[in-house]
């Protein structure tokens, strides 16, 4: 099976890229004039947030695939992607909270759009697991999970708009339509960090998926034997 070769290779590549990303973030990127060392959490926090969006998006894409093809594998893939998304989302909340504490002196700021959005999404996607574990496995559960995952990906922009409408805006805007507002070396570091984080997602996704598939085949085997 190719999975025996693919997983270690993926994990090794991920470790290498992550090491490079950390080295760049800690030693290569210039110190922020205003925030000092604490600004370097940016290289973890923002890639975490973007990776969480990517995994929710990937989960919704797999959900759509499930609804179209009724392929059980797509249901499992959608679940695993959302599971990873919730983990990355929780880490985004945590790192954002730490950053807010250092920058603004508070653990939580309702004025910060991204934190509030992640709180809403975190609540929404935690309910995904409640839904999934409250319904018996089968096509009905797969259908509902898929529909819920699709609602989630639509809720992201709607919630973002709502939060923008409701809050005063004190979040530093780094990405504007005119291009990123940072030095070239910072941007390079950021891109490497983002790539490393996406790679981490891909690796964890592959590992969890392999585990879940193994679990399923074992169960099937057990049922055949008894």
């Amino acid at each position, binding site marked *: 099976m190719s999975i025996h070769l693919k997983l270690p290779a993926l994990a090794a590549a991920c470790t290498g890229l992550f090491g490079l990303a950390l080295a760049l973030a800690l030693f290569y990127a210039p110190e922020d004039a205003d925030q000092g060392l604490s600004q370097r959490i940016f290289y973890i926090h923002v890639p975490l947030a973007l990776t969480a969006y990517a995994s929710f998006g990937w989960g919704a894409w797999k959900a759509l695939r499930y*609804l179209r093809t009724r392929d059980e594998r797509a249901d499992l893939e959608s679940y695993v992607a959302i599971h990873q998304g919730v983990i990355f989302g929780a880490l985004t909340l945590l790192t954002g909270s730490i950053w807010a504490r250092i920058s603004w002196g508070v653990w939580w700021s309702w004025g910060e759009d991204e934190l509030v959005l992640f709180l*809403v*999404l975190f*609540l*929404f996607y*935690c*309910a995904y697991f*409640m*839904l999934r574990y*409250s*319904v018996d496995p*089968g*096509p*009905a559960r797969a*259908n*509902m999970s*898929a*529909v*819920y995952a*699709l*609602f989630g990906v*639509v*809720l992201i922009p*709607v*919630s973002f*708009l*709502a*939060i923008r*409408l*409701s809050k005063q805006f004190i979040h530093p805007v780094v990405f504007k339509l005119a291009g990123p507002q940072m030095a070239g070396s910072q941007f390079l570091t950021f891109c490497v960090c983002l790539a490393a984080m996406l790679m981490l997602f891909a690796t964890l996704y592959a590992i969890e998926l392999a585990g879940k598939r193994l679990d399923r085949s074992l169960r099937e085997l057990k049922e055949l034997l008894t």
Partner: protein
Amino acid sequence: MTYASDVAALARKDLLLELRAKETLPSMLLFVIAALTIFHFALPSGTSDVAARGLLWAALIFTALLGLTRAFVAEREQSMFDALILTPVDRSAIWLGKAIAVFAFLVAAEVVALPAFAAFFHGLNGRTVAAVALADIGICTVGTLFGAMAVAGRARELLLPLLFLPMAIPIVVGGVGGYLWFLVLYDAIFALLSWAAFEYVVSEV
């Protein structure tokens, strides 16, 4: 039978059931008045109208939840879902009929709740009433779909608030801020999505 007459028949069935059993609407009415009374005591004296208006939205969302939790109980307990799915109607008509019935209950509860709010607190403006009407559409469309999901699970009444409240956050933002265009946008997006998705939620139950 056309789509519209199917929807009308399904909505009439729910309204008739409620008229005979009188289960959902009285509890929603009592709940919303009790909640407003609690809010009166929860707010310190001399708070602004804005704070009171925010609590009105909390009361309305929870009242709607009460109605939505009951929405599919009859179908589930009497195994009506199978019968409904076997009938030669478009599945989304089942959703629309139910959403209309829930909307009717919610509006009926608000016809009492809004004047009560105006009397208990410091009046009400036209913009809030319009926002409530628009929010009701979003609440009922999304809530009916999630209600159908929640009754399929073991947790049922426990599950619906968990599924629905994060979805209701944008409604509250639009309602409290009085952003009518945002509520229209929300209604349009999620009504369409719920209409398209309902088939998948019930087809395998």
